[in-house]
């Protein structure tokens, strides 16, 4: 990274309408999914009177299934050479699940609906990010991802608010929340189907020839399974995967951070439902600036800087000072972490992946990140119960402080490869 100069490309930034539309699709879909997610626990326990404990188990299984589906969908999208139909299938499945919410009253029907929704999300993510990556100017890749993530998070922040306002006006009006959610899901699918063009997932003649050469090399050795292994033996992507797994293992779920904030004062208890919305607002405000920084100074650096913000957030959550200021600071740091890592990781991964394996590459990196974060939350839960919130935060924070320089070394080569690509 030492040799990496801040480069100003000659090409001017031009926002691709495709990305704008994908952003609108994600915004509508997030309004749809987050409005239901916000009220689901209330609905299950307060209204249906179902056992939440068993529901937690189902949810855990779903997370694993969704992660595996994500790689498979990425792979299918690359095989087809057309990400849009695969993404559409994912959005469509989630739309069907929204219809299911209107009729599901029992445990199994609700579990099936939630599973369908999760799998839909798993299917759509990687091909959609491949579409973004293909449509964006390579020089401004992270900034384009930033635009998409901003729109996406407008939906994620608005969804819970819409749901709570609905329940405020119509007490017990869960049916109305489900109908509103279905409407936004339908708008998302319609916008994707009608306005986003279907295109082949190869970026430019230059990179496509590079891809074909890589392709021949891989196919020559035969066997579809081999593709994955060769992909990750490429030094850049392999390194990114290693660093993502390492850092993901030290990223505790934001639920724990909210609980730690609640643990030290009543302030956060009272404002609990808005902690998530607050984090998303920071995320959406910083998504584009972080993308610009990543394009200019290197995606690896911004990715690591995001984890530095996470480290600061752990410290902030561990300090026994409550109240408005510290709580807001924690949320700002957490939002900054997501803004600096989420879209930037997808941009970095697509930069390091040959064009015809784009969705597979992005999907795999995201899956590795997601699975290591699930593992991290499980381990962190143990620490939490053994030593209490503050001490657990300090332990994970210290490990992260050690892992950051290590990741810097690991990613340095990856960034050099990306710069020369």
């Amino acid at each position: 990274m030492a040799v990496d100069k801040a480069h100003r490309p000659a090409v001017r930034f031009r926002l691709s309408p495709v990305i704008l539309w994908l952003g609108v699709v994600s915004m509508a879909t997030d309004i749809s999914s987050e409005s239901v997610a916000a009220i689901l626990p209330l609905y299950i326990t307060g209204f249906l009177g179902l056992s939440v404990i068993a529901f937690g188990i189902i949810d855990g299984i779903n997370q694993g299934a969704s992660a595996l589906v994500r790689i498979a969908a990425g792979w299918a999208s690359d095989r087809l050479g057309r990400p849009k139909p695969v993404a559409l299938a994912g959005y469509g499945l989630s739309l069907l699940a929204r219809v299911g919410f209107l009729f599901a009253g029992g445990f199994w029907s609700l579990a099936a609906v939630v599973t369908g929704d999760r799998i839909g999300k798993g299917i759509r993510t990687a091909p959609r990010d491949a579409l973004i990556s293909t449509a964006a100017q390579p020089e401004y890749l992270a900034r384009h991802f930033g635009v998409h993530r901003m729109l996406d998070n407008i939906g994620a922040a608005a969804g819970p608010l819409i749901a709570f306002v609905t329940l405020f006006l119509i007490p017990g009006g869960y049916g109305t929340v489900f109908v509103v959610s279905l409407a936004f899901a339908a708008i998302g699918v319609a916008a994707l189907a009608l306005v986003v063009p279907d295109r082949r997932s190869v970026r430019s003649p230059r990179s496509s020839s590079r891809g074909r050469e890589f392709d021949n090399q891989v196919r020559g050795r035969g066997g579809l399974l081999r593709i994955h292994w060769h992909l990750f033996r490429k030094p850049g992507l392999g390194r990114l995967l290693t660093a993502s797994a390492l850092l993901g293992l030290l990223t505790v779920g934001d639920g724990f951070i909210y609980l730690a904030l609640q643990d030290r004062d009543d302030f956060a208890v009272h404002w609990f439902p808005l902690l998530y919305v607050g984090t998303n607002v920071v995320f959406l405000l910083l998504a584009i600036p972080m993308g610009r920084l990543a394009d200019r100074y290197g995606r690896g650096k911004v990715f690591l800087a995001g984890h530095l913000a996470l480290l600061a957030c752990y410290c902030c959550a561990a300090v026994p000072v409550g109240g408005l200021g510290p709580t807001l600071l924690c949320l700002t740091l957490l939002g900054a972490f997501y803004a600096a890592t989420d879209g930037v990781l997808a941009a970095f991964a697509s930069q390091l992946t040959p064009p015809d394996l784009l969705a597979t590459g992005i999907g795999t990196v995201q899956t590795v990140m997601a699975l290591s974060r699930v593992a991290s939350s499980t381990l962190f839960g143990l620490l939490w119960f053994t030593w209490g919130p503050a001490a657990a935060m300090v332990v994970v924070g210290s490990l992260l402080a050690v892992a950051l320089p290590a990741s810097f070394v690991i990613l340095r080569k990856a960034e050099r490869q990306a710069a020369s690509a």
Partner: protein
Amino acid sequence: MIQGATGGGRLRWIVLLMVTGLVLAGAGLYAVSAFQRLQESSAAAPSVEVISEGKVLPSGSFVLFRNTAAGQGYGMAATVSSADPAGPRTMGGAFCDRVYSAGSKVICLSTNRGLLTSFEASVYAPDWKRLESWALRGIPSRTRLSGDGALVATTVFVTGHSYAGTGFSTETVIRSLDGTTPAANLEAFALLVNGQQVTAADRNIWGVTFVPSQADVFYATAASSGRHWLVRGSIANRTLTAIHDGVECPSISPDGTRIAYKKNTGAGLIPHWKAAVLDLATGTETVLGETRSIDDQIEWLDNASLLYGLPRTGEAGDSDIWRIPARAGSSPELYIEHAWSPSVAP
């Protein structure tokens, strides 16, 4: 750049606009009609007989519950005389998701809907004057008051916010209302099973029942790794000692000799809870003749019979309270219609 959008672009745009307009109009209409239906139903006279005067807890023996009859007063705490449970009900002064009284005071767990949906516990005097309240960390599930009104136990579902995914767990706190001891989270108590301390991270404690006229002792459910125990708790020693297997949501009889609870007899992920009674002296377990699954903390009406709530089939948000004699082979009968969360004040 976007050839796909220009070729036949206008038609696609018109279709998209039409789809958007149609679904938003549809959802809007649905919301307006739901709003109107609710206005009509909540302005309507209660669907059960109500004594309008009162609003003070009865002086004699009574049953306090959450009224779930459609119309005015839906979700309000209400009472009926123990002598005439099917008779007219007196509406109380608070909306509660779970409510409990031991005579002198009322504990009420409620949801404050709004942009900030939050959860709250409040203590009321017999005239429904609010004495005290505090924020809860999750969705109300169970609550109990000790007989002398000095201790209150609350169990909530902490979701870690649904966004965070998997972290469904319960949080149970015992709080002293006279302010003599600080609130205690039962997860911080030492859980002892066969003399060994269980430190697994997935420990969950819920459903406290206070032992009559013993200030320090209570019973509760503890769970870890899919196993459930009846635990006997000591506030002073901060311990939970497992004394029996497979007991959920215990409730001790007024004479302190037996525990009524729900026993999971279902296979697989869906639980099927049967009502059962455990004799503390002999360890004999008696499963009662209720065939429907009970997800409630059972309440003793007297030393011979039990009360519990069951949702009404086909009517989401409505439920009834049932009574069953606490002996083998007994069968349930309807006790209070359109009601939930019973508690009995002697």
